[in-house]
């Protein structure tokens, strides 16, 4: 369980800056290839998780496209908990980008224009206007991503297998118990834990967004 929380937390936090950047890009900037980027972001949502896991293996495995080079500088993903975090992050990414993009699109672009006519450069506008106003959406996206990361199974087991103490996350462990005759107790226990964590995460996000709304009015 500690492992699952660590995997989900690290995965979510690591991918957050990228999700904010991509969400902003999709919401505010017109460029060629936007449709392609949009499709790419949503790919993990529609492709079978096993395929995503296999792709990660090809890219970040020890003999993968980037895996070899990364291993030389000491970053190894395959069959490590970091690999599980990467898989979880990739699977949660579309949900997070979507929430962030929607919250940025909901901001009146003229607020940002007003800031720029007052002398604010784009990065300053982003930091002082866009980011604070999109904050509830970013948090909601992060919580969604976290919940998805906790439950991620297919890509994780394909990419990093299910090694006890290293990559055996809660869903992988539950699957293991279910496959083992007479281990129903374990499956039950872990399922309850998983449901508990998910409900806590949702309640937390609801509480956050309510506080945000109250602070705004």
């Amino acid at each position, binding site marked *: 369980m500690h492992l699952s929380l660590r995997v989900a937390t690290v995965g979510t936090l690591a991918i957050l800056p990228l999700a904010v950047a991509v969400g902003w890009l999709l919401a505010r900037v017109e460029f060629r290839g936007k449709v392609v980027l949009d499709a790419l972001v949503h790919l993990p949502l529609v492709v079978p998780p096993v395929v995503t896991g296999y792709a990660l293996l090809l890219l970040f495995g020890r003999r993968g496209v980037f895996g070899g080079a990364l291993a030389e500088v000491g970053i190894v993903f395959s069959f490590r908990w970091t690999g599980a975090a990467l898989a979880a992050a990739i699977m949660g990414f579309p949900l997070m980008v979507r929430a962030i993009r929607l919250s940025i699109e909901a901001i009146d672009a003229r*607020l940002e*224009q007003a*800031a*720029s*006519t007052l*002398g*604010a450069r*784009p990065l300053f506008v982003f930091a002082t*206007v866009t980011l604070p106003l999109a904050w509830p959406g970013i948090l909601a996206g992060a919580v969604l991503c976290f919940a998805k990361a906790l439950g991620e199974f297919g890509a994780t087991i394909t990419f990093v297998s299910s090694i006890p103490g290293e990559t055996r996350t809660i869903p992988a462990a539950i699957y293991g118990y279910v496959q083992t005759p007479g281990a129903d107790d374990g499956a039950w226990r872990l399922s309850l834990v998983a449901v508990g964590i998910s409900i806590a995460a949702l309640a937390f996000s609801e509480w956050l967004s309510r506080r945000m709304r109250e602070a*705004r009015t």
Partner: protein
Amino acid sequence: MIRFECGLARPAFTLDAAFSAGLGITALFGPSGSGKSTIIRLVAGLEKPDRGCITIGERRFVDSSAGIFLKPWQRRAAMVFQDSQLFPHLTVRQNLDYGRRLTPIPERRIAPEAVIEILGIGALMARNPVTLSGGERQRVAIGRALLASPRVLLMDEPLASLDADRRLDILPFIERLRDEFSIPILYVSHAIEEVARLAATVVRIDQGRVTSVGSPAEVMTGNALDRPGERFSRLSILNGTFARYLPEYGVSVIAHPAGDIIVAGQTRANGPVRIAIQATNVTLAIGRPTNISVRTALQGQITGLETDDGPFAHVTIALAGGDRLEAFATRLAIDKLGLDVGDEITALVKAVAIDEKGVPGLSGGRLQS
């Protein structure tokens, strides 16, 4: 000094406009969709022209032939939007400070205290913008733009989202900042009274083109029978002096060489008053009629009489004292009265037909404590 000359082609819209204007308020006036807002967004740098040149004072914002296009934040052409666009996550004070803190210290020409005093927003400083009324919000937005010490202040229909009473409240603030800070102001509006009251220069725009540039008196008058609806947008501007206020009736008397003018409401300031009179609200009479409710009777001489095959006649009157007054009457009435150029005439104006919005310093039709 503002110099503007830009061309811009969009799928459903073409802009090809040029004008220049001096200090004070330059009003961009015209029907909606005519390109007024596009011009102001071009000056702000929020739109890029296909070709052209925009200069404010010594500063070139845009010069397509030299490849110059300053970004909005390099121009300091602060914009006031129709619906204020205050930052909802900041307090009023933080909103006001936003542009000021981005302005290099040597270029901060405008003192916050003066702006806060003129706009009357001192009591709002700790408030959140969402809790403000529409009029308060707009005053804060104007203050925020001013405190960026802009090279030009851009106001895009700043009063359009307010009801008539609130509009009346804010106009004096805009007049004061026009008079006390020497910042050129570009002011977009389609409200003829606002324009007549505030502007030093009016740029009249129609379908992406400038149709005339000049003082309000020059631009709001002129040839008039071409388009059927044109008579409703004809306006004459008379220069009078505040004489007295009649508290028991709630009206003010404005002295004019051609005769006293009665307007509703009380003027706050003594001295010169500009009054806008719509050409459709003028009645012509020979001699001075008695037993009539209209109190404002102006003496003058017909200097122009314009007719065509249509029902209307467009009459231009030189009033005693030199002001020009336009009037519309039916061709039938002109014939029956036998009026012609050179005739002495009395122009009657109903006081209730004079919009007090167009009269500086008037505090509205009702008595206010």
